């Protein structure tokens, strides 16, 4: 009784109403309450007896009349909950008890059917129970409704109450299940969906092989679907190829759909969605991995997309349609549309009007696919760039992925680390690094036209290359000679980088051409329209995109430091090449020079041009001189006693001021040739007065033929080699000392040079009476003629190349020569200051050597010079400080006793070295001082 009154008061807060309750009515209420409880019991519990329905309704009516409807509802729900706990929940979870001990990793093929059966059975059972309870709930709803209709004469709108009650019931069901959820249940779901989806995808891919068989459409499910969602029937899914495939699989989809629907009705909506989403993503990931593989020559993005449309999207479409979700989304909101979604007709084969849910799914799937592919490609970017021109499809893919995901920085980090690990190591040749660098530039230019990321990636390569000695040489070779093609050949097989750059440039110029004809305003306007902001990753310190143009040559020059250095290196190489030419054919060099002029400007290539011009002039002069000879010889004046004519001699005449310093060693060449040279010089003087020739006798090339009895061997050698072998003409045995004197070179040079002939088997070496004097004999007959290539008429060896001897002083040698001037300064400085850091030496030199000779070297040049002094043991380096060595440091030690000399810093360190003998005879300060003063510069 108290409970009833409390209930009533809490509902209405009208205590007056209690007065109107009579004893009779209390009696009625109690009777009906008992009846209501009993009928509820029999409705819900046990087997369920619907026959008590009418009795139940009348009890409800009476209780409602007494304003106890909420009590009725509460009690009914309590009873429902208890029943559900007993009949539904515990049975449902009991089904899955077997999986409790099986972890998800152990679930495999064999569990597939088992899981499916158990899950379906469990869902079926619990849904039956739930349906029955809903029926009972409906009876209650009817009872309440009919009572209220009685009061309000049929005007009462019942829907609100019904919806409220049913949602309360659903909440009850899901909370009961959720609170008792076993931990392994989500995993079981995931496994189930994974297996189902794989089955589906297998079916689709299997079907696609022979899709003619699927002309017969299976529309048995269309009707059912129409019931669930009227909009779906408007979608023409049966007509297209993809739609046909999925309708073929409808049974499977239906099964899955049923499971999803059951799960949803139990309140597992988000869990089910999670499960099938993760299954789809897993499947997608495997698919992407399969498709992408290690083949970079084909674009896989399109096939991945196709697969997404063909399998997961079709599945989702069917599933959503089955679940009737598409009804709830009336129109896809425009804000959701990605560029991909803006063309629904082309992007949804077989699905004319995509629902918003499907668009969402598509975007999610595609993003995931892009990201997966991008990660795959980024991990392999190094290999992709190695294969660059062939792998451009993969690079295009990556570009699109990155446009979508915007994770460029990931690319930069991963690529830099693989560069450091695989390219920038001592084992990689400079050429390889350079080629990879160029490929990287080209590839990243495609991926990121703004060049921001290239900047980041290029930096470690550039820094590394700067540390390599042969970088400059390799760059110049790469620029001018191409990747291993024969640069002198008429049909250039491998184009040089320069040619390629030029081609690119011409193409670009063609593109811009149209704009140039337009007015400036229009041009400016078009530029303005094309403007895009820099990516957020751009370093604001590095200037705007205008300065970051893709100038491959510029980036390569950036490695070297300055264009002047590159030009100098090229000049040295050109000189070497030209001096070793035995004809005057310089067409390819002229072409290269023209290309270089385009890029570096005419003035910086001036000297190279003069060098080429020298060759052209030499050819002309050579012809003129020959012509004048033939005039003379027609007059029959002289042909020389030797019978050797000037026809034998060609000359390259250089303007030495414009060439890099050439190696000028004097040698004695054979009398006859020497005679020819002076004849030639005389003619030159006659023709070109007042200019005269100075021969560089050690330079040039000699083609000669040696005849042994009936065999002849031909060689192309340097003049020194020719001089050596020609001395054997009259005397077949030489002692090295004599031969060196005859040729006019030091003995060690001779020994080195003669190795060429020894290796050819023409001269034999034997140790003479004195150990330092070798005997050289002409081999009587070339024994193994085939090995020595005697029969091979074109046995051409440029011995100079073999021994690494060059005609032109390398840049390093030039530098050394120039730096020697400063040696005295440096020694003097170190004597004064004791120890100095590299920077300080550099700055001091800059400060004091402003007059002739001006100090204009870089810090690196100074460092390499100082390291030369270190190896000559003139200096020593400790903790980044340079010291004088030997007696100089001894002076420093003694100065400890005369502190005014400010040598203190050095004292300790030299002392540690222990190269000073305190007891030696130098131990007086006056000696030290005089020496010190002598050393002052």
């Amino acid at each position, binding site marked *: 009784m108290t409970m009833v009154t409390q209930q009533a008061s809490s509902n209405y807060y009208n205590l007056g109403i209690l007065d109107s309750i009579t004893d009779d009515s209390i009696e009625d209420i109690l009777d009906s309450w008992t009846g209501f409880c009993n009928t509820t019991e029999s409705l819900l519990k046990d087997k369920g007896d619907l026959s008590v329905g009418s009795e139940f309704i009348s009890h409800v009516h009476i209780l409602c009349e007494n304003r106890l409807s909420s009590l009725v509802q509460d009690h009914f729900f309590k009873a429902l909950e208890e029943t559900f706990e007993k009949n539904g929940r515990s049975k449902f979870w009991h089904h899955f008890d077997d999986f409790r001990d099986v972890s998800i990793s152990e679930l495999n093929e064999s569990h597939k059917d088992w899981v499916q059966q158990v899950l379906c059975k469990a869902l079926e059972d619990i849904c039956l129970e739930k349906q029955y309870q809903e029926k009972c709930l409906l009876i209650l709803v009817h009872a309440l409704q009919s009572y209220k209709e009685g009061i309000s004469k049929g005007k009462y709108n019942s829907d609100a109450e019904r919806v409220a009650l049913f949602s309360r019931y659903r909440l009850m069901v899901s909370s009961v299940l959720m609170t008792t959820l076993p931990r392994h249940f989500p995993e079981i779901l995931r496994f189930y969906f994974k297996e189902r989806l794989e089955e589906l995808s297998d079916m689709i891919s299997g079907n696609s092989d022979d899709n003619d068989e699927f002309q017969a459409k299976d529309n048995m499910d269309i009707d059912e679907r129409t019931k669930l969602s009227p909009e779906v029937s408007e979608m023409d899914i049966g007509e297209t190829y993809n739609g046909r495939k999925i309708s073929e699989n409808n049974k499977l989809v239906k099964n899955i759909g049923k499971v999803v629907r059951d799960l949803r009705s139990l309140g597992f909506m988000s869990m089910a969605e999670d499960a099938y989403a993760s299954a789809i993503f897993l499947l997608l990931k495997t698919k992407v991995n399969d498709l992408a593989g290690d083949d970079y020559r084909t674009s896989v993005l399109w096939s991945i997309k196709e697969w997404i449309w063909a399998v997961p999207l079709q599945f989702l479409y069917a599933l959503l349609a089955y679940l009737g979700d598409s009804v709830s989304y009336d129109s896809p909101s425009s804000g959701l549309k990605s560029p991909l979604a803006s063309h629904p007709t082309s992007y949804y084969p077989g699905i004319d009007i995509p629902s918003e849910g499907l668009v969402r799914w598509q975007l999610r799937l595609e993003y995931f696919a892009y990201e997966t592919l991008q990660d795959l490609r980024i991990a392999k970017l190094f290999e992709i760039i190695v294969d660059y021109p062939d792998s451009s499809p993969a690079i295009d893919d990556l570009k699109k992925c990155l446009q979508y995901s915007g994770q460029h920085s990931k690319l930069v980090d991963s690529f830099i680390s693989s560069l450091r690990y695989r390219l920038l190591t001592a084992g990689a040749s400079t050429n390889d690094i350079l080629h990879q660098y160029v490929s990287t530039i080209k590839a990243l230019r495609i991926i990121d036209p703004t060049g921001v990321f290239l900047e980041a990636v290029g930096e470690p390569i550039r820094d590394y290359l700067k540390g390599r000695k042969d970088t400059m040489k390799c760059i110049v070779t790469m620029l001018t000679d191409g990747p291993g093609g024969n640069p002198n050949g008429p049909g250039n097989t491998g184009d040089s980088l320069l040619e390629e750059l030029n081609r690119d440039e011409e193409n670009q110029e063609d593109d811009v051409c149209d704009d140039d004809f337009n007015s400036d305003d229009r041009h400016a306007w078009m530029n303005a329209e094309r403007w895009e902001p820099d990516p957020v990753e751009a370093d604001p310190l590095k200037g705007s995109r205008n300065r970051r143009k893709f100038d491959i040559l510029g980036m390569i020059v950036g490695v070297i430091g300055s264009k002047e250095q590159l030009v100098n290196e090229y000049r040295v190489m050109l000189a070497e090449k030209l001096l070793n030419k035995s004809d005057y054919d310089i067409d390819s060099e002229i072409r290269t020079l023209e290309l270089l002029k385009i890029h570096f400007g005419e003035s910086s290539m001036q000297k190279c041009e003069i060098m080429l011009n020298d060759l052209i002039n030499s050819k002309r002069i050579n012809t003129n001189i020959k012509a004048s000879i033939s005039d003379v010889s027609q007059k029959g004046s002289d042909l020389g006693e030797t019978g050797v004519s000037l026809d*034998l001699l060609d000359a390259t*005449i250089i303007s030495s001021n414009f060439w890099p310093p050439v190696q000028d060693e004097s040698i004695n060449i054979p009398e006859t040739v020497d005679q020819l040279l002076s004849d030639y010089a005389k003619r030159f003087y006659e023709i070109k007065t007042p200019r005269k020739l100075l021969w560089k006798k050690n330079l040039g090339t000699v083609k000669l033929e040696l005849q042994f009895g009936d065999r002849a061997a031909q060689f192309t050698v340097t003049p020194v080699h020719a001089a050596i072998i020609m001395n054997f003409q009259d005397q077949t045995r030489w002692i090295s000392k004599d031969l060196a004197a005859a040729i006019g070179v030091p003995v060690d040079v001779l020994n080195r040079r003669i190795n060429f002939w020894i290796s050819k088997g023409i001269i034999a070496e034997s140790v003479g009476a004195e150990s330092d004097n070798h005997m050289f004999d002409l081999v009587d007959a070339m024994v193994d003629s085939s090995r020595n290539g005697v029969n091979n008429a074109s046995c051409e060896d440029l011995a100079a190349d073999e021994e690494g001897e060059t005609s032109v002083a390398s840049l390093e040698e030039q530098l050394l020569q120039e730096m020697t001037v400063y040696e005295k300064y440096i020694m003097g400085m170190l004597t004064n200051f004791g120890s100095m850091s590299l920077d300080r030496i550099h700055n001091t030199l800059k400060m004091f050597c402003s007059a002739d000779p001006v100090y204009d070297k870089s810090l690196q040049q100074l460092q390499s010079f100082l390291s030369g002094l270190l190896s000559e043991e003139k200096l020593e380096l400790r903790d980044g400080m340079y010291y004088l060595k030997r007696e100089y440091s001894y002076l420093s030690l003694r100065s400890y006793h005369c502190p005014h000399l400010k040598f203190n810093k050095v004292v300790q360190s030299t002392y540690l070295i222990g190269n000073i003998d305190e007891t030696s005879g130098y131990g007086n300060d006056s000696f030290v001082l005089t020496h010190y003063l002598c050393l002052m510069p």
Partner: protein
Amino acid sequence: MHHFVFIYLSPYCRWHAVASWTWDAQDETCGICRMAFDGCCPECKLPGDDCPLIWGACNHAFHLHCILKWVNSQTPQAHCPMCRREWQYKG
């Protein structure tokens, strides 16, 4: 015993030598432009025939272009920039 023969007259044989040219002058540099004689005057790009030397009666040599400019700027009578003697081209 076979002796080998170095064949001068074989068509294959050639001696390709290298030489540098120089002006047969006493000085190294032009007294006007201070550039090397073997180089060229500041106006020229190619040395040698394109930028020849010329000697005066006083035996001083200059780049032709340099001395021409000098002579044309000196009126009425030009003098050698080195020795101040009257400038006359050496015959």
